[in-house]
């Protein structure tokens, strides 16, 4: 902590050396820093989400783009073709690798028919088995009838070629598979004049493979500009619409840039206003600069460990500067208001550290995440928060001028009065909380990432129109991607998976290029099988049987010669049909040196499950679909959320309990967090929005920031500050500076940023209002006598437990600053000022939860030298209720009326409390001392916990004595209104709060007299 005294030169040298070393290391880190703007670090390791996104990043599949050309009015189709030719010439060859050209339909027909000649290669084992089953005379007779009927149909003339090559009706399934493949593209495309035309003949597509992927910002922008330019220069009768994923990337980036500029401008203006209105002290700049410098140093240091730092990590780290600024504000207000920065820092270190640790707990939890970027975020932000705190505690006090002025700081009504006024707010908050919980339970997790897509309305409409115009159905297609180091190996792996898939998927749901054109290995195996099957005897028998079966319908003797030509002379190792090259552009892809086969299926829940089951034991395969990706993100987000909440919850609980030593105070501090999170979820539900990956991060930030408000408010109450006292004013400033930033995002156009703005603003606002209004109200309520009606409510049930937050029946005037206090001297003086042996007459009021107050007349006799005491409790008629007593070795109930004896443990506790109140009033000589501006605290460890004595005032007397354990105050006694009598000082009011039984003893002294020794 800062010290008012100058730092010794040697120590200063070490500090400077240390700083130079850290700065040098940070600079070295910055030199090797590489900012990773890709999505990769954001994806959980070994997850399906990661696989899917990396597929889109790396695969040539994602580099496709389309120009959709459509005729306006009655313009002739020739204009469409001319526009397409012109557009093609305008394509930037740096960006467009190739334009896909389907074969001429005349060639396609030839190629399709020639596929029947390749039946030996393309028919698999199952096909051959079915073919074998069709060789019986009855089956052949039936088949000849079918062929004859086909010839009588309108399309009959065109069927002849096929029937001649495939009298058994098996080879034609090759064409069926080819058709299924073209259908699986999911578009109403017809090939006309070597163009991809719509069935209406007035629209066409220019499909292209680009050299740009959707994950590359620069090339996405370049491609979007090129395509937009082509669209803008379309002829008057033709409309050209670009469709590609890269437009999404470019537009999202543009929109985010615009929104962040807006938010940055608003933030800047508000900070300037705050500067001029609130402080006008240039030193306030240090409050905002120190966290930024800390983050700069941390990023440099972390770059030594993580050379590839995620852009998101840097972005959120900078956002978290908002939380780190809170420390600075708290220190700035404390030091500015005070006269001695060392004393001020001693006074505020505890809330400051609590505020820090609650935030740090969240980011420490991130270190355990499966997401690399989250781990980086945990380290970077955690370290920067620590640095920010250290700079706020040790550096900032040296920069800030004590005794300065901050607008309105220190003014306003006392918090106790404010708390009274805010009691209704507690009930309102309880109602709001209930309503928010109701809505929050309705919040769902949205797995559809397209809802975070910031494309323009025009692009969105274009894509909807495109889907409506060209898509065959409403269901999108999913992909099953099979990879291999070579095209053939990928095809072989794909054959294996296709065989499994064909058994698991419903018929017609799974389409694979392999089902039509399998790998060379499979084709060779098919030919070998074919040859083995068609032994000469079988061929001769079929020829005879077929002639016999066809005779009834007049089939010519040579009608099926083309088929027998195929049977006896199967083709092997012929070049693939040219159409395959076109097909491969749709059903294969490449990622680096890896070859990929792309199988497709309708993207339904059932099919996604089947696909995932199919590839369970095939690490070379993955499922890529909108639904699967959404599920993968949801799974990842869900497991991450569980992990983060659990670990950060444990951290926060441990930190809070360790520092506050009070469960109750910890709960109060976390109240704004609870309200903030619940209100955030409720607001999302009320606005019809859902939780998603963005709001999970927002929730983490709400948790981190609102806990600060709780700390500041709780300690402001404890210190009996005015409404705009140092703690509360710090909270107002922290909330204002943060809310302005998040509030600006409410006007964001990008849905993800809008979501962030809405989530953060609602959460932070609720947290801030809770800290500002509800915490004082609750503290005040706890102070009031519990009424049965009130005690019925759950909220007040909690409040009755909050003994650490009760206000006092006695008022203590503001404590004067101590001038060079000497702890030993204070002990000594106080020891002399207190009577050793005395008798006092008191009114003793006992308050307990759920019970009426009990007032008795107390007669107390204390001998501090002997360590003995006796307390008589009498009613107003002088009838004795109880008689308690004790000495250094024991305490006992010497008498109690029967009803009170039923509460023997409570009476014994009261006896112990009496001893704590009146005996051992001087701290042990070996106590640790802490000197504040207005108080001196002595603390010593005992077997039961930490025993603390707080001295202050003029003359300096014992103000408070308490025993703290891990779970909070065991007991706390405060002394008020010391009055001199016979050269001694005696408190006129004493309040004892018992943390075990949650009762309070109030002693109002009426008279006392010293006993002569």
């Amino acid at each position, binding site marked *: 902590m800062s010290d008012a005294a100058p730092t010794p030169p040697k120590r200063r040298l070490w500090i400077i050396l240390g700083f130079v070393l850290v700065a040098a290391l940070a600079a070295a880190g910055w030199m090797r820093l590489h900012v990773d703007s890709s999505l990769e670090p954001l994806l959980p390791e070994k997850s399906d989400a990661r696989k899917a996104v990396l597929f889109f990043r790396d695969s040539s599949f994602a580099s496709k783009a389309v120009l959709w050309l459509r005729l306006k009015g009655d313009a*002739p*189709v*020739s204009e469409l*073709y001319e526009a397409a030719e012109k557009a093609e010439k305008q394509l930037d060859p740096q960006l467009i690798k190739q334009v896909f050209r389907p074969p*001429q*339909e*005349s060639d*396609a*027909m*030839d190629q*399709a028919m020639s596929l029947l000649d390749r039946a030996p290669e393309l028919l698999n084992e199952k096909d051959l088995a*079915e073919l074998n089953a*069709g060789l019986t005379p009855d089956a052949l007779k039936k*088949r000849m*009838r*079918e062929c*004859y*009927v*086909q*010839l*009588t*149909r*309108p*399309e*009959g*003339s*065109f*069927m*002849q*070629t*096929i*029937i*001649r090559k495939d009298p058994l*009706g*098996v080879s*034609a*399934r090759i*064409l*069926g*598979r*080819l*058709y*299924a493949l*073209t259908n699986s593209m999911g578009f*109403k495309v*017809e*090939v*006309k*004049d070597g163009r991809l*035309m719509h*069935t209406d*003949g007035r629209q066409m597509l220019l499909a292209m493979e680009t050299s740009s992927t959707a994950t590359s910002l620069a090339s996405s922008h370049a491609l979007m500009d090129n395509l937009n330019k082509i669209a803008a220069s379309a002829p008057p009768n033709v409309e050209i619409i670009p469709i590609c994923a890269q437009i999404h990337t470019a537009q999202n980036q543009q929109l985010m840039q615009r929104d962040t500029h807006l938010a940055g401008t608003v933030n800047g203006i508000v900070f300037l206003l705050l500067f001029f209105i609130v402080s006008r002290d240039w030193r306030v700049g240090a409050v905002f600069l120190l966290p930024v410098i800390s983050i700069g140093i941390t990023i440099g240091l972390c770059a030594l460990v993580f050379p590839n730092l995620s852009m998101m990590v840097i972005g959120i780290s900078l956002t978290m500067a908002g939380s780190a600024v809170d420390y600075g504000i708290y220190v700035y207000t404390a030091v500015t208001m005070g006269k001695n920065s060392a004393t001020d820092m001693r006074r505020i270190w505890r809330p400051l550290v609590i505020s820090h640790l609650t935030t740090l707990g969240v980011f420490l939890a991130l270190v355990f995440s499966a997401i690399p970027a989250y781990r980086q975020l945990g380290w970077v932000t955690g370290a920067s928060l620590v640095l920010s705190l250290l700079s706020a505690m040790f550096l900032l006090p040296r920069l800030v001028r004590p005794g300065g002025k901050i607008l309105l700081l220190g003014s306003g009504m006392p918090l106790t009065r404010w708390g009274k006024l805010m009691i209704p707010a507690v009930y309102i908050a309880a109602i709001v909380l209930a309503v928010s919980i109701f809505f929050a339970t309705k919040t769902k997790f949205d797995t559809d990432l397209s809802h975070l897509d910031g494309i323009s309305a025009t692009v969105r409409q274009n894509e909807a129109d495109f889907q409506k115009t060209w898509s*065959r159905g409403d269901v999108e297609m999913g992909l099953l991607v099979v990879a291999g180091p070579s095209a053939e190996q990928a095809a072989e792996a794909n054959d294996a998976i296709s065989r499994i898939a064909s058994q698991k998927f419903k018929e017609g749901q799974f389409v694979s290029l392999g089902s039509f054109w399998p790998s060379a290995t499979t084709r060779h195996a098919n030919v070998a099988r074919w040859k083995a099957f068609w032994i000469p005897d079988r061929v001769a028998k079929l020829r005879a049987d077929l002639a016999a079966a066809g005779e009834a*319908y*007049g*089939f*010519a*003797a040579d*009608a099926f010669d083309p088929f027998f030509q195929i049977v006896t002379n199967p083709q092997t190792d012929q070049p693939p049909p040219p159409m395959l090259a076109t097909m491969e552009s749709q059903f294969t892809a490449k990622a680096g040196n890896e070859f990929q086969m792309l199988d497709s299926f309708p993207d339904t829940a059932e099919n996604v499950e089947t696909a995932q089951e199919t590839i369970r034991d095939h690490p070379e395969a993955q499922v890529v679909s909108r639904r699967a990706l959404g599920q993968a993100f949801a799974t990842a987000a869900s497991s991450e959320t569980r992990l983060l909440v659990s670990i950060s919850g444990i951290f926060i609980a441990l930190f809070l309990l360790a520092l506050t030593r009070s469960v109750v105070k910890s709960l109060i501090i976390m109240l704004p967090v609870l309200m903030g999170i619940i209100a955030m979820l409720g607001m999302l539900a009320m606005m019809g929005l859902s939780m998603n990956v963005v709001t999970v991060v927002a929730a983490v930030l709400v948790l981190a920031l609102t806990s600060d408000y709780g700390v500041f408010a709780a300690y402001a109450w404890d210190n009996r500050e005015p409404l705009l006292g140092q703690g509360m004013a710090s909270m107002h400033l922290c909330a204002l500076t943060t809310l302005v930033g998040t509030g600006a995002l409410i006007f964001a156009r990008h849905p993800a940023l809008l979501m962030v703005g809405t989530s953060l603003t609602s959460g932070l606002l609720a947290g801030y209002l809770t800290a500002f209004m509800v915490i004082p109200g609750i503290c005040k309520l706890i102070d009031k006598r519990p009424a049965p009606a009130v005690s019925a409510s759950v909220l007040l049930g909690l409040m009755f437990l909050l003994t650490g937050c009760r206000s006092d029946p006695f008022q203590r005037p503001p404590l004067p600053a101590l001038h060079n206090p000497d702890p030993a001297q204070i002990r000594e003086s106080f020891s002399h000022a207190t009577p050793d042996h005395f008798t006092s007459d008191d009114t003793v009021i006992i308050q307990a939860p759920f019970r009426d107050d009990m007032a008795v007349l107390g007669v107390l006799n204390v001998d501090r030298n002997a360590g003995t005491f006796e307390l008589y409790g009498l009613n107003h008629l002088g009838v004795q209720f109880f008689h308690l007593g004790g000495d250094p070795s024991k305490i006992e109930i010497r008498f109690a009326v029967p009803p009170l004896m039923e509460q023997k443990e409570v009476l014994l506790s009261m006896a112990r409390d009496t001893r704590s109140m009146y005996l051992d009033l001087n701290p042990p000589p070996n106590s640790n001392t802490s000197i504040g501006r207005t108080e001196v605290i002595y603390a010593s460890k005992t077997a039961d916990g930490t025993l603390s004595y707080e001295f202050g005032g003029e003359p300096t007397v014992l103000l408070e004595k308490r025993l703290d354990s891990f779970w909070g105050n065991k007991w706390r006694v405060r002394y008020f209104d010391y009055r001199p009598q016979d050269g001694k000082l005696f408190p006129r009011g004493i309040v004892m709060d018992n943390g075990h039984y949650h009762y309070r003893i109030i002693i109002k002294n009426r008279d006392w007299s010293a006993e002569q020794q």
Partner: protein
Amino acid sequence: MNKLPGLVSFFSALLVAALCGTTRAQAPSPATQPTSALVQAPLELITHVQKQLSTVDNVQADFVQIKNLVVLKHKLTIRGSFAMQKPDKVMWNVREPVKYAIRVEGEEVRQWDEDTNKVQIIHLGGDPTFKAISQQIQAWFLGNYKELAQSYDVYVLGNTPLTLRFVPRGNTMLGKLVSWIEVTFGPDERNIDKMQIHEAAGDTTVLNFTNTRLNQPIPKQTWEIPPR
């Protein structure tokens, strides 16, 4: 084991573009076509035919289709009837040598045959085969001959009755399948009396339409599937 839908769909979808589409004029007619002795149909004549056909809202007729196919030892004679109602309703009913019927109405196709005695319902969007058939029939009987003239060279073979020969243009799929199509119109050029398709492989199909009724109420049972 009827695998035809997939098979037919594939090339019928391609075929329909060639039959009905409006393609650009490309290469000149194949040299193999006997065009030198024929007279090119003037645009006025085509406009006239189209104008006459445009007065037709519905057609009913019987047909006899004679196919000379290399796969069969004999000529295949098919008898039946057909009906067509603008804008998109077509019935093709085969009575001999097998019973078969197909009805296209908007996007829905129903077909029936006596062997299976089942009505199969298909949507045009899901199978372009029947769309192609429907479009072909409508193109020839009610279609836009001006557009057809962009895909074919049209020659006049005779004026009484008017007989036109349509020779597919360019290296199209249709050109590979069909050498030419001859259409003989009725007396007032409002209907087709005869249609001959000469395939490139040498097969021929002749369709003779009789008992043609234009713009007369079509009995409800005409559209029934299975047919009565």
